[in-house]
């Protein structure tokens, strides 16, 4: 990881003005191309589809999904955990790389943080959608009410609400604070009056004075320091949603850290996916280089090894514990109704990423893209299988049944991906996708190192 920090990641001929131009011009100077319009239109349709899914759900109720006792969590909660995992990674990656002085983060942190915002927001919708009475979601908030109905503070689900809302607010602030100097740059480069006013208003009067920079950097680092424990605690709470439930396969003390590692793993995979698309779509080959993919590949590989060790720990703990119910659950993983999916998940999360041990594979962008997609699929399967395997194989044998997703399950998942992509299409046309000021700091360091 740090080797990437030491080695130059930007081209030797790169200049400050050139770097800013490469990032700012696609937003300010270039009109969106045909490919962008097609993508924008398609994802807009999917976003409208998501609205239809929501509307139908609110009219008909959760019965439109495949959930039924005992598999009461189904797609919605798996999607929630999957999206939240992706959503946790952006801020965690950005803050962690900042704290560990991985300056190559400059090329990826902006869109990784944007990914966090979009993914965490979408994730937050799923538990609300999953409530039988979604219009009463605010009951989770401990507001003083005349009914004297108070949340159950011993429930991790209530902690979820507080943790996720705090996290989303914090992520918005962290993202926006890092964006301010770049918004000022956009204000100064914009030719249209509307753009100048808009960027000017959001850049809060930034002038780039030494005092501004000193305060900006001090607060940004302090926020990064706060972000890491916040992110870790939030996904730990998600792990506790399961660990506290006494269901076979869930009641594991390792679940909170396992969920945090899984979030980092899936989130970094999504960052790689987006990095490939942003790089190609905006022509940022000089800004996001093969060296960046090399660094990200190493972290993805470390995540894969950690996931493999977590799976081994789960199997060993179950075997060692000797609890009959847990043992049956483990046997169900390997031989039950969902066993083929379980093997596909292991293939995606543990086996395929091992190719990243080879440096030339990490630097091969096509390989990085394919591996990242495979991991995204694998991590979604992992989330859904945590739910299906445990709930389908419940304590009462007569209740056991296989979950079959309905059209609305798939439509809600697919359209939520569409909504995510739609927000991303808007993002790349409205704000710089790469942190220009951080990029120039990195360029300055590399020029000094070259002498």
């Amino acid at each position, binding site marked *: *990881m*740090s*080797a990437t*920090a*030491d080695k130059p990641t930007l081209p030797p001929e790169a200049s400050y003005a050139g770097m800013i131009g490469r990032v700012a011009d696609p937003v300010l100077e270039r009109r969106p191309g045909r490919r962008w319009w097609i993508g924008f239109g398609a994802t807009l349709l999917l976003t409208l589809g998501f609205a239809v899914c929501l509307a139908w759900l609110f009219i008909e109720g959760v019965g439109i999904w495949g959930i039924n006792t005992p598999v009461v969590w189904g797609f919605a909660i798996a999607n929630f955990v999957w999206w939240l995992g992706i959503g946790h990674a952006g801020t965690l990656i950005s803050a962690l790389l900042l*704290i*560990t002085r991985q300056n190559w983060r400059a090329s990826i942190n902006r869109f990784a943080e944007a990914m966090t915002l979009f993914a965490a927001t979408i994730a937050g919708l799923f538990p609300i959608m999953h409530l039988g009475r979604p219009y009463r979601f605010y009951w989770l908030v401990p507001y003083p009410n005349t009914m004297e109905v108070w949340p159950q503070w*011993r429930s*991790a689900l209530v902690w979820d609400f507080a943790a996720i809302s705090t996290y989303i607010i914090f992520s918005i602030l962290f993202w926006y604070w890092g964006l301010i100097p770049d918004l000022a740059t956009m204000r100064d480069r914009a030719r249209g009056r509307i753009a100048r006013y808009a960027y000017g208003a959001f850049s809060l009067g930034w002038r780039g004075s030494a005092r501004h920079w000193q305060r900006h950097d001090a607060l940004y680092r302090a926020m990064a320091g706060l972000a890491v*424990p916040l992110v*870790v*605690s939030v996904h*730990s709470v998600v792990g*506790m949603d399961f*660990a*506290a439930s*006494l269901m076979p396969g869930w*009641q*594991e*003390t*390792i*679940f*909170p*850290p396992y969920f945090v590692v899984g979030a980092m793993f899936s989130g970094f995979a999504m960052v790689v996916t987006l990095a490939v698309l942003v790089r190609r779509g905006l022509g940022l080959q000089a800004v996001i280089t093969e060296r960046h993919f090399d660094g990200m590949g190493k972290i993805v590989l*470390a995540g894969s*090894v950690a996931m493999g*060790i977590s799976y*081994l*720990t*789960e199997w060993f*703990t179950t*075997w*060692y*514990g*000797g609890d009959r119910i847990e043992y049956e659950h483990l046997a169900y993983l390997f031989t039950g109704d969902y066993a083929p999916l379980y093997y596909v998940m292991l293939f995606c999360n543990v086996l395929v990423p091992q190719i990243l041990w080879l440096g030339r594979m990490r630097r091969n962008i096509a390989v990085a893209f394919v591996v990242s997609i495979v991991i995204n699929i694998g991590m979604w399967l992992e989330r859904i299988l945590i739910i299906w395997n445990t709930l389908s194989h419940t304590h009462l044998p007569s209740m056991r049944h296989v979950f079959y997703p309905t059209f609305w399950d798939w439509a809600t998942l697919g359209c939520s991906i569409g909504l995510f992509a739609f927000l991303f299409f808007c993002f790349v046309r409205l704000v710089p996708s790469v942190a220009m000021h951080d990029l120039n700091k990195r360029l300055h360091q590399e020029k000094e190192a070259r002498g």
Partner: protein
Amino acid sequence: MRAGALLLLALAAAALAAFGGPALLEAWLFAFLFWASLALGSLGALAIGHLLKEEWLRPVRGPLEAAARTMPLLAVMAVPVLLGLAQLYPWAGPGGGAVLEGPRALWLQPWPFRLRAAGFLALWIGLAWLLARPGRPDRRLSALVFALLLPSVTLAAQDWSLSRDPAWFGSLQGIAAWVEGLAGALAAATLTALARGTPSREESMVGLERALLTLALAVLWLWFTQYIVVWMADLPAEAGWYLRRMRGGWAWMGLGLAVPALLAAILLAAPPRHGPWRMGLVCALLLVQHAAHLWWVVRPDAPLALPPAWLDAAMLAGLGAAWLAWWREGLVARAGA
């Protein structure tokens, strides 16, 4: 000096194995686990530092390498434990098999236990020999060491320390124990660097501050996470593990010493720009926390006898003297290399 320490330790180990009672063995076990955790933590810190090419490794690399290379001494320290299993582990004592069910009855058998211990020690001696040496670090090797250490230390912690309560296997326990050892090892190495006045760049010291704080937070997070999951689930075996430790003097050791020491270390480490005294205090608190917490984890499950406090302290110092002699010679040899 190194040979002398080894010889003395071997004699003490042989005497203890032949004539020692349960109280002496208990004290030996705690001292062995403490020094082993520092050696294993040092090896882990080296692997992480090399892997990430961390700047903080520079001032503490020497002490960490010397600590990691004490692994052969650990093999000697382990002998009385492996020969005295019946007095240390309820499942190995007379009628011990009755407390075990299912696969645990297969796993927790004296000879498989000893063979596993021998395998772990051989693996760690090899890894330390490969990694803890001067020169340019091999990052692939560091990755391999880390990947092998994590499962092996987890299993060893389960065997040596946590199997004394065979009713519960916490899947997080071993990892948390190792991370705590990492924090302790880095704290000890930092104290050494501070005491020796090792010249260090500011960047290295800032890195050390952050590494210590990160590890202290990780220790707090992992143990707290385990506690909260157990508290929410409230199942007999795991709740019983905590309940035993919440009574009488055990609670004082945990809640009165280990937890406050850890919280104080975090509070002191949080504001940036440590001076040498503050950093030294943070390290000392982390070491106190590690020793107190390890004692709190290990001792309440003693099956036969509880040694008096002075015996624990004397054994810790005695084994520590041998370990430190071995460590110091390694440090001097490294400096001369």
